[in-house]
């Protein structure tokens, strides 16, 4: 039953859906070109045979060092046919802009704001793209690989505490 999803996608979007493969543990995954993600998602939700009606889990990954540095991953589920699909969208660092899917599912709103807040990926067409978790005075995108682990930007002037010796903390990523 999973093969039908990838087959339908490949038939409907020949150029933009490429490299379908079987992920670990039998999930079917496919890469989607950045510009077509909104149409693909709309098709996946509207088509009765696929009916991916649940808002997807959207997250981003920062592959520092690879050419298209960022990758946005959409994990979709259909509660009607109980099958899942994973769309992966490559986003280059030079132009971190991709169309938003809040038009298709309202639930995708906060996931996209999280990707913007943590990785700096902008979503065109998002109704209210602001920082979700970090405070507005925060500079930079914390979950990027080049952001330091302990890069604190305190809002309140720190009181000097001299009676406690704070060690170097857990070993960093050696």
């Amino acid at each position, binding site marked *: 039953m999973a093969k039908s999803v990838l087959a339908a996608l490949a038939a409907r979007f020949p150029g933009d859906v490429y490299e379908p493969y079987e*992920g*670990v*543990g039998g*999930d079917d995954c496919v890469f989607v070109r950045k510009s077509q993600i909104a149409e693909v998602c709309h098709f996946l939700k509207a088509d009765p045979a696929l009916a991916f*009606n*649940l*808002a*997807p*889990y959207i*997250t981003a*990954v*920062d592959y520092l060092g690879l050419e298209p540095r960022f990758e946005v*991953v959409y*994990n979709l*589920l259909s*509660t009607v046919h*109980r099958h*899942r699909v*994973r769309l992966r969208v490559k986003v280059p660092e030079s132009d971190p802009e991709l169309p938003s899917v809040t038009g298709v*599912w*309202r*639930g*995708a*709103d*906060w*996931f996209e704001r999280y990707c913007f807040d*943590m990785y700096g990926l902008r979503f065109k067409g998002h109704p209210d793209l602001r*920082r*979700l*978790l*970090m*405070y507005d005075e925060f500079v930079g995108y*914390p*979950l990027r690989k080049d*952001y330091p*682990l302990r890069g604190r930007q305190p809002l309140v002037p720190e009181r000097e505490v001299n009676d406690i010796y704070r060690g170097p903390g*857990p*070993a*960093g*990523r050696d």
Partner: protein
Amino acid sequence: MASELDKRDGTPAGAGAPLAPSPAQGYAGALDAPLHGKQMVVNLGPSHPAMHGVTRAVVTLDGETIVDMKLDIGFLHRGFEKSCENLTWGQAFPYTDRLNYVSSIMNNVGFALAVEKLLKLETPLRSQYLRVLTSELHRICDHLTLVSAMGLELGAMTVFLYGIEARDLIWDRLTEICGARLTSNYVRVGGVSRDAPEGWGGKVFETLDRVTELRETIDALLTRNRIFMDRTRGTGVISREDALDFGFTGPCLRASGEPHDLRKAAPYLVYDRLEFDVPVGRNGDNFDRYLMRMEEMRQSDRIVRQCLAQMEPGEIVVEDFRYVLPPKPLVYGTIEGVMAHFKLIMEGIKVPPGEAYSYTEAANGELGFYLVSDGGGRPYKIGLRSPGWPVLSAIPFMTKGALLADLVPTYDSINMIGGEVEQ
């Protein structure tokens, strides 16, 4: 003169309906001219008991009704992903405890299943039973906490005391098996860390009887209580399509009528050997979500009893030292034990490069882990799909036009846990 008066103290610009053409020509009209009040903006800040201390709701009120609400979250963002990217796979377990800290073993199980999916590792049968057993005990704790908090915030103090007493009893049993009351850190990659002490099953049966007694008392106190029904029935309503569109999963989705439960849709561990049924609501309001929790507690009770009955003695962890710490006598006795121990502690489990998305049915819904591994001993990325996240994003939609007082039971019934929503 009257129309002049009407114009001057008519509605200030930008709020309420635009000023109707002044009907105050005749004397009678002046009495019926609409006098709109100015909308008051109230700041239900982070440190507020109804907001569980971690969310800030800027609410625009017209009298008592909520006209618009903006949620500002992130007051408990503790950098779960960034911290876990600098730890080995085994060290990430205590962090997953603190995600949904009311049912911490479920996060452990979700994370362990995700890593085992990447490793293509099969865990022994007894450890699967222990995982399901302790997860269901923690599911009862989660629902008990929700019911007592909901009762407390609607004024029922006794329900809170009964609920916390029942939860403490379950925590005692969990302390005997995992060593900690709340943050269990019980599951390991490839199995569980400790076996059940002997005689534990009997004590769990006694505790379950006492918890059932307390739960039925709470049920008697709340379910047919006039005030509780008036406050929760018909408030915070969300239809089935909207729930799916917002990404609801778990009890909140089933309360709106969608019978989707991952333990039945995609059974994992030993859920396919246990029979239990899944309650489904009808009209998706707070009262239905409360009933879902009460009914699910009864089902979890059944599951725990079946697990204890079906469980036979056996291995509790997979015998492969590439993934599991060897037992102490082997570490002190043999050179392979020392090497395996050293490699696991210093560099962590070598997970083959790749990415996987694994999903389990946690207390609030589908808990998904999207793991990316670059072959090293530390995770490259841990993406967490917390069940409470999309449900919280729907609160402004659910409470639009409701009274401010209805915001409290709605906020409670979705069981927003700061740790998992703000990672």
